[in-house]
């Protein structure tokens, strides 16, 4: 226990890093739910694809340098590689999100709610299995993701911050502030909120609701894709299966904060990250092999929902008034 308390500040810093990653994924669940009342079960897999596509791009363009230096790059190459990873994740995941909505969900827009839900689960299986087939076919069962940055511990104000967390602390806030600006201040953001509140009234204003929905899927998927890069850099690995658990935890985060509520998803993500980090740290101080983080996250969710059924900041579904 002593060991746990001593490392608590560092534990919290790590919780913040993975919490920001969960928050980025949770935002996609919450944006889509806010507009369509659909739980996009394939969202976690889009997150995984962000890691995978950027892995492929890094191997393609920087394979030689990565191989030569145990995955560590320096100077201008490092900056270029990081930009490339996020750019590829942004473009490819944005495209995947667009395609999923256009071809899997849109045809079922007016069907009973269960139909798109089952379709979402189906899309999730299709993505995971397609990647699994590719991984087995190419003998890439365990993809090592290059750490890019030299892994070291940076002392800041008595804290020990792992260098890999720096990327999270730089990129995630930029993406989150960017999203808040987009939704809060731009013409498209206003159209998104109007569509979430009253789709028919939004159409009466001349808003092209299909475009807004496509845009929402693209934005959510881009955030998930960037979270995928962050995850892969943080854990130095990526494979077909990581989207399931990370997606589930991020979905929990979205519900925890109040599904449909953007700030709620951010808060929920940070909480889930902290709970996971703290419980992991307790596990570590108790001995080897303990894995209580996942049950703890869901226990927190259940406790919150008992007292606040609509989540911490309140769910925001379509106004029925």
């Amino acid at each position, binding site marked *: 226990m002593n060991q746990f308390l001593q490392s608590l500040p560092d534990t919290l810093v790590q919780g913040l890093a993975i919490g920001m990653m969960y928050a980025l994924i949770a935002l996609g669940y919450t944006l889509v739910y806010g507009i369509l009342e659909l739980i996009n079960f394939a969202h976690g897999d889009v997150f995984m694809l962000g890691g995978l596509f950027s892995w492929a791009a890094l191997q393609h363009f920087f394979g030689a340098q990565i191989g030569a230096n145990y995955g560590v790059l320096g100077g201008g190459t490092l900056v270029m590689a990081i930009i490339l990873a996020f750019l590829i994740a942004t473009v490819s995941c944005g495209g995947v999100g667009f395609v999923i909505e256009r071809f899997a969900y849109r045809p079922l827009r007016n069907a009973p709610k269960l139909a798109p839900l089952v379709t979402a689960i189906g899309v999730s299986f299709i993505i995971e299995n397609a990647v699994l087939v590719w991984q087995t076919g190419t003998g890439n069962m365990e993809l090592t993701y290059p750490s890019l940055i030299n892994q070291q511990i940076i002392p800041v104000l008595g804290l020990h911050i792992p260098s890999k967390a720096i990327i999270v602390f730089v990129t995630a806030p930029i993406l989150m502030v960017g999203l808040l600006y987009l939704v809060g201040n731009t013409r498209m953001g206003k159209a998104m*909120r109007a569509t979430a509140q009253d789709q*028919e*009234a939004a159409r009466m*204003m*001349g*808003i092209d609701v299909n475009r807004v929905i496509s845009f929402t899927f693209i934005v959510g998927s881009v955030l998930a894709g960037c979270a995928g890069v962050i995850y892969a850099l943080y854990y130095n690995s990526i494979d077909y299966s990581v989207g399931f658990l990370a997606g589930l935890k991020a979905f929990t985060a979205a519900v925890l904060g109040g599904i449909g509520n953007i700030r709620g998803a951010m808060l929920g993500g940070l909480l889930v990250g902290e709970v996971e980090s703290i419980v992991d740290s307790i596990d570590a101080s108790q001995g080897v092999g303990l894995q209580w983080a996942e049950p703890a996250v869901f226990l927190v969710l259940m406790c919150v929902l008992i007292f606040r059924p609509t989540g911490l900041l309140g769910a*925001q579904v379509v*106004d029925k008034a």
Partner: protein
Amino acid sequence: MTMLQFNGVHTYYGPIHVLKGVNYRVEEGEIVCLLGANGAGKTTTMKTILGLVRPTEGTVVFKGQEIGKMTPSQVVKAGIAPVPEGRRVFSRMSVSENLELGAYVRSDHKAIADDMSRVFDLFPRLKERRKQLAGLMSGGEQQMLAIGRAMMARPTLLIMDEPSMGLSPIFVERVFDTVQSINKQGVTIFMVEQNANMALTIANRGYVLQNGEVVLENDAASLLQSELVRKTYLGEAIEVS
């Protein structure tokens, strides 16, 4: 010039046949009133104009252009703006954001700002509350917002669906005053109303819709005198008030 014309329009919701071959005509500069009991198809008429419901048969013509197959966005761009039934303001958005959404299809930013100050002149209450969430305002204020929002589209035809519904007598009066003054500025108005007495007082002409069919059409003064309107609509209205 004829602003709006329905030529034998039929509409369905799935198997439910709602409009059964209706003809309406609204001339430029007119206030035309559409009366009818609940479920007659008045709101469906408004949705058909906006392109939210498609006619299966017949044509909807706006300023000589067939709009029956247009998307709502194209219809709004063509110059038609709605004040929907039940107001439908965006309750979790501010008053000024609601007004901005009314001008969604426009991109002339300077003129939009001018129009917003014109709406604020028309409804000073909205100016005071422009930062407030629309959902926190009273029903009457929300109706003012819905009207202001429609004006932000700079429509040539304003379609209003029961704008006085659920309002206190003072606000009902204000709504009808506003409708008249908007009309004087040159905006043509096609209005659904249950308050037949007030509506026919300000309207030029009117239609009575029953079960999806036009059973009566005439100038407003004659409609006020007609047996059917007096019995069915004014009788009700007088009892209620």
